[in-house]
């Protein structure tokens, strides 16, 4: 018995148990405190929105829907758990997803660009026997979307083989099986390379299956399946990964050219074609950004189809296009060139460190404080460079002739040897002719019409008519550094599906405002100069410039590579300079003035000895960037501007706003009030600082709400833009490039609506997307998330997509505002550009979508980079001067992931206060524990906090988060279940620890007692 008692009271067992449970208890107690700053992230990971609607009215009518969907309705149904009928919003899931997939498939087919189609190689005829080459024919290897936050699973069982068979084509099974056996080992790869210790930076590899692994299958079966060889080539892109790295097994070490295995496959296909074993070669480009054509152009390829990354519907759309079930009527949203380094912007793209610097904040994983990039090319991005230099060569002006900038030309730069396919280019299976261009003008609104006829005998198709503008390049421009590209897209229209022989008159409307230019150096605003302006309708940018050249002059230049058509040119003569009309914002009535002097090295007051020569058509030879711009950061003012936080200027006029009043106003009461209604002030007077923290400092996939009396619902938001990332079974949407390729705004609006419906269905009110940065070079890692190299195409497409989202009440945090056009060093890189290029190239897409819109968009995401030396999220000129004061934006502006000190987190509360004053309104993180650092007691900051909360509340008010809310609805903040679970665990472990401690103490007593008894007995 005694032995048994001694065993129960084992000192070591109970001591160790106490230690074990004690440590566990300590972890649970400390863990709660550690988890506190991450509460928002934990909630988002568990998909918990802690802000919940509670209806206290007796006759509840929850079906109040400000943003209804066609695929949902409120109805009574029997709830087995509650054992009663409940009134609920029910979704027609099958109908919803069938609709979404039909829209995405239309976008994919209309976004497929047929670059080449010799002897009508495509479409494949029914019963064709084809062989498919390339690892990308398998869903696991096809690039459905890019990587990073724009990544999304395909979520489909489609295979290209099955889709082609379904469309009546026979597929080489022998070859397919040979590929299938080894395909899992040959998916495209993404890997970290840790440049300068950057943990996040990635590079890619193609990982094509070597030809020798399928050679025997080819030899066995190709003769029977030789009607066509379809070869798919894929390229990845990603957040944190540009594509200008050195890819050792690629032509020119360029990832966007072919790699050795691909060259080997094409060599063999060429040989098989020469032997007569295959009749034609069809190349499909499945790429996140523009590939270069230096090597591809050397092969006898019959048809080239650029399909981009099309999401869930990729394969079914591709099969439809290949077999002619759908017409590929996409047009290029980017210029396709032979060598991607022929773009002048590539000279200043990549990794640049201040040549000399001191006292900068130290560089960290998320703060590249000693890095910079200069947009030396100015406005000459994409076709604006190629077409302008071409015109100047043809017209013999601006020192344009020479071998500088030549990458693929033999000797001097020749347009046709540098550009493979111009911007806007694209074929259709149908042929079209245009006639009867007319232009009418009324009070500065130009109405351009043309009749399009499908002249094909066989195929139906859609045509795209593009409207380009040439502005006069004057002496004033030369004097003040204003650049005027030879052509600029100002509008476009797409026909309906025209049957053979069918005609349609289409109309493009533009505003005279498009004729203006930004004059940072002279008038400091938008100006309309006197002179001849040329409007031309064209099928691409090169046809446009040739039309205008032929309308202006008769030239025998050896550089003139094609005849233009002056019939499609309309000249507008502006008689007088007008430097006032467009200096006032037509949206807000505010004066438009320079806001980015601190981003232009030549105008920045703290630039010190730094100087930049921007590329100019006045003298191409002497302004073409031959090497990257060198910048030093030694000027005291510049060093100060780079610090995390600037002293807040005192203002005697600033007064503390009212906080914590109870005026009995709920957010819902403002549903039909103007933004300037006095009721807003009554609502905002009720705010407490804790609520301001919730509304502004909680943006970690859940945007914060506010409880009674304000009753703001908050809600779940997520990545985009390719779909709702991580949401099981959700749709992967076509990339922004594919959308832009469609040149079809009504279709893209439909896509925005469909996407918005899916978001409502899955319980999200906001999306971190779409992207609207510019394809400054082909190497931008996230180009697939952005529309185009052209701001007008990007802007009109963005406007259409956002309009669809807005109709569904989705807050779209359009990103990345702004000048975040490369991934390298994106965390804090100082980005320098002149104001004309910032406004006319990089801001314009955002401006199109925000200013004068029919469906209001209420979200925007600021970028990681600095503009000049100031973080974009704290740049007052950008966030208040342009965005609010010029464009009249009333929504919320969210930071990109708030991970670095310069973004006002990690204790840098002065930087946070600066950003709030500048106009930033929500942080994409959970920074509530840090808070405003006492700066909320400064009246200037307090007023800015109040204003930011208004913008955030307005965004929620104009969102589907308000669905179901009516007068009387209250918002309460619940404790998430994991916190309750944590508390229960703390109590349980606490009790166990006390018990084990008790047993440990008892065991010591019992053992001591027993020892004493033994020694007593022994002494006897």
């Amino acid at each position: 018995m005694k032995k048994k008692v001694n065993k129960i009271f084992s000192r070591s067992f109970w001591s160790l148990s106490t230690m074990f449970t004690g440590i566990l208890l300590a972890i649970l107690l400390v863990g709660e405190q550690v988890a506190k700053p991450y509460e928002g992230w934990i909630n988002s990971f568990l998909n918990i929105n802690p802000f919940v609607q509670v209806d206290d009215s007796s006759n509840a009518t929850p079906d109040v829907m400000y943003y209804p969907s066609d695929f949902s309705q409120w109805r009574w149904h029997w709830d087995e758990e509650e054992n009663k009928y409940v009134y609920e919003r029910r979704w027609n899931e099958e109908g919803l997803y069938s609709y979404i997939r039909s829209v995405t498939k239309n976008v994919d087919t209309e976004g497929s660009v047929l670059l080449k189609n010799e002897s009508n190689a495509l479409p494949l005829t029914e019963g064709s026997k084809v062989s498919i080459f390339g690892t990308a024919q398998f869903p696991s290897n096809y690039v459905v979307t890019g990587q990073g936050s724009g990544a999304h699973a395909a979520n489909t069982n489609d295979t290209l083989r099955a889709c082609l068979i379904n469309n009546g084509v026979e597929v080489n099974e022998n070859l397919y099986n040979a590929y299938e056996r080894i395909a899992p080992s040959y998916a495209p790869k993404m890997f970290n390379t840790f440049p300068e210790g950057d943990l996040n930076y990635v590079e890619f590899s193609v990982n094509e299956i070597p030809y020798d692994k399928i050679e025997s299958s080819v030899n066995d079966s190709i003769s029977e399946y030789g009607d066509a060889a379809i070869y798919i080539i894929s390229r990845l892109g990603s957040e944190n990964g540009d594509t200008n790295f050195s890819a050792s097994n690629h032509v020119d070490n360029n990832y966007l050219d072919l790699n050795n295995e691909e060259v080997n496959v094409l060599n063999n296909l060429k040989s098989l074609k020469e032997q007569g074993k295959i009749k034609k070669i069809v190349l499909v480009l499945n790429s996140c950004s523009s590939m270069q054509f230096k090597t591809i152009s050397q092969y006898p390829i019959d048809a080239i189809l650029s399909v981009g990354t099309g999401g869930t519907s990729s394969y079914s759309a591709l099969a439809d296009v290949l077999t002619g079930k759908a017409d590929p009527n996409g047009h290029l949203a980017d210029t396709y060139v032979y060598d991607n380094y022929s773009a002048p912007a590539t000279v200043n793209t990549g990794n640049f460190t201040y040549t000399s610097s001191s006292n900068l904040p130290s560089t960290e994983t998320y703060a590249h404080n000693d890095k910079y990039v200069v947009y030396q090319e100015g406005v000459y991005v994409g076709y604006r460079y190629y077409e302008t230099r071409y015109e100047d060569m043809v017209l013999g002006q601006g020192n344009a002739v020479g071998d500088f900038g030549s990458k693929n030309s033999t000797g001097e730069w020749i347009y046709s040897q540098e550009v493979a396919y111009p911007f806007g280019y694209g074929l259709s299976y149908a042929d079209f002719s245009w006639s009867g261009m007319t232009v009418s003008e009324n009070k500065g609104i130009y109405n351009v019409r043309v009749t399009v006829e499908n002249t094909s005998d066989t195929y139906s198709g859609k045509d795209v008519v593009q409207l380009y503008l040439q502005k006069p390049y004057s002496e004033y421009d030369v004097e003040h550094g204003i650049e005027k590209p030879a052509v600029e897209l100002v509008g476009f229209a797409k026909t309906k599906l025209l049957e053979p022989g069918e005609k349609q008159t289409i109309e493009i409307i533009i505003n005279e405002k498009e004729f203006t230019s930004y004059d940072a150096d002279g008038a400091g605003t938008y100006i309309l100069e006197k002179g001849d302006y040329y409007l031309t309708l064209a099928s691409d940018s090169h046809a446009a410039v040739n039309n205008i050249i032929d309308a202006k002059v008769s030239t025998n230049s050896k550089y003139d590579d094609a005849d233009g058509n002056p019939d499609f040119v309309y000249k507008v003569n502006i008689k007088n300079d007008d430097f006032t009309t467009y200096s006032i914002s037509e949206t807000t009535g505010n004066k438009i003035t320079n806001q980015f002097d601190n981003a232009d090295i030549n105008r920045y007051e703290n630039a010190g000895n730094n100087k930049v020569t921007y590329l100019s058509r006045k003298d191409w030879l002497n302004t073409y960037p031959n090497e990257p711009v060198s910048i030093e950061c030694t000027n005291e003012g510049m060093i100060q501007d780079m610090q995390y936080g600037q002293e807040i200027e005192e203002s005697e006029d600033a007064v503390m706003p009212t906080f914590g009043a109870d005026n009995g106003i709920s957010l819902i009461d403002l549903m039909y009030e103007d933004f300037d209604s006095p009721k807003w002030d009554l609502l905002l007077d009720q705010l407490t600082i804790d609520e301001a923290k919730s509304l502004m400092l909680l943006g970690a996939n859940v945007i914060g709400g506010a409880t009674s009396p304000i009753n703001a619902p908050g809600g779940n938001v997520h990545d985009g833009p390719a779909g709702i990332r991580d949401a099981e079974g959700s749709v992967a949407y076509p990339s922004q490039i594919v959308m832009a390729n469609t040149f079809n705004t009504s279709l893209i609006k439909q896509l925005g609506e469909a996407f918005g419906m899916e978001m409502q269905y899955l319980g999200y009110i906001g999306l971190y997307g779409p992207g609207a940065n510019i394809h400054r070079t082909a190497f931008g890692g996230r180009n697939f998330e952005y529309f185009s190299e052209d701001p007008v195409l990007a802007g009109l497409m963005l406007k259409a997509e956002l309009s669809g989202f807005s109709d569904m009440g989705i807050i779209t945090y359009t990103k990345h505002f702004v000048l975040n056009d490369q991934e390298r060093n994106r965390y804090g890189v100082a980005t320098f550009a002149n104001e004309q290029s910032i406004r006319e190239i990089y801001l314009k897409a955002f401006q199109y979508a925000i200013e004068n819109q029919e469906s209001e968009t209420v979200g925007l995401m600021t970028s990681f980079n600095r503009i000049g030396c100031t973080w974009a999220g704290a740049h007052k000129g950008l966030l208040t001067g342009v965005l609010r004061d010029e464009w009249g934006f009333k929504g919320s502006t969210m930071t990109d992931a708030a991970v670095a000190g310069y973004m006002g987190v990690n204790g840098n509360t002065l930087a946070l206060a600066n950003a709030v004053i500048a106009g930033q309104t929500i942080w994409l993180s959970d920074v509530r524990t840090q808070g405003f650092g006492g700066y909320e007691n400064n009246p200037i900051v307090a007023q800015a906090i109040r204003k930011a909360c208004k913008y955030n509340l307005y965004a929620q008010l104009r969102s589907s988060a308000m669905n179901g809310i009516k007068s009387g609805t209250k918002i309460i903040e619940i404790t998430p279940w994991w916190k309750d679970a944590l508390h229960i665990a703390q109590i349980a472990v606490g009790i166990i620890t006390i018990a084990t401690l008790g047993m440990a103490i008892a065991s010591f007593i019992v053992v001591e007692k027993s020892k004493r008894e033994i020694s007593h007995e022994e002494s006897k």
Partner: protein
Amino acid sequence: MRNIFHKIPWGILAGISGILTFYLIIGVYGAYFVFAQVNAQTGQIATIFDSWWQILLFIFAVLFAVIFVLTLTLFILKKIMNKKGAITYEEKSK
């Protein structure tokens, strides 16, 4: 020396180091798991060595794992030796 070996409570030491190893491994993995989830939301990558305290956690985890294996071995050795000692004593007493 033999006396010291027998006097040291290897079992207790093994228990303590085992417990510490257990929590340290959970700490290393837990921190990685949380940061991986957070970073995944913003397209970033987490590693187990993102911060100084994660590195420290890892070092201690390895250290205590080694101590645990060592002390456990010594504890088992001690048990075996004790058993042998007891048998020898019994044989002697026969």
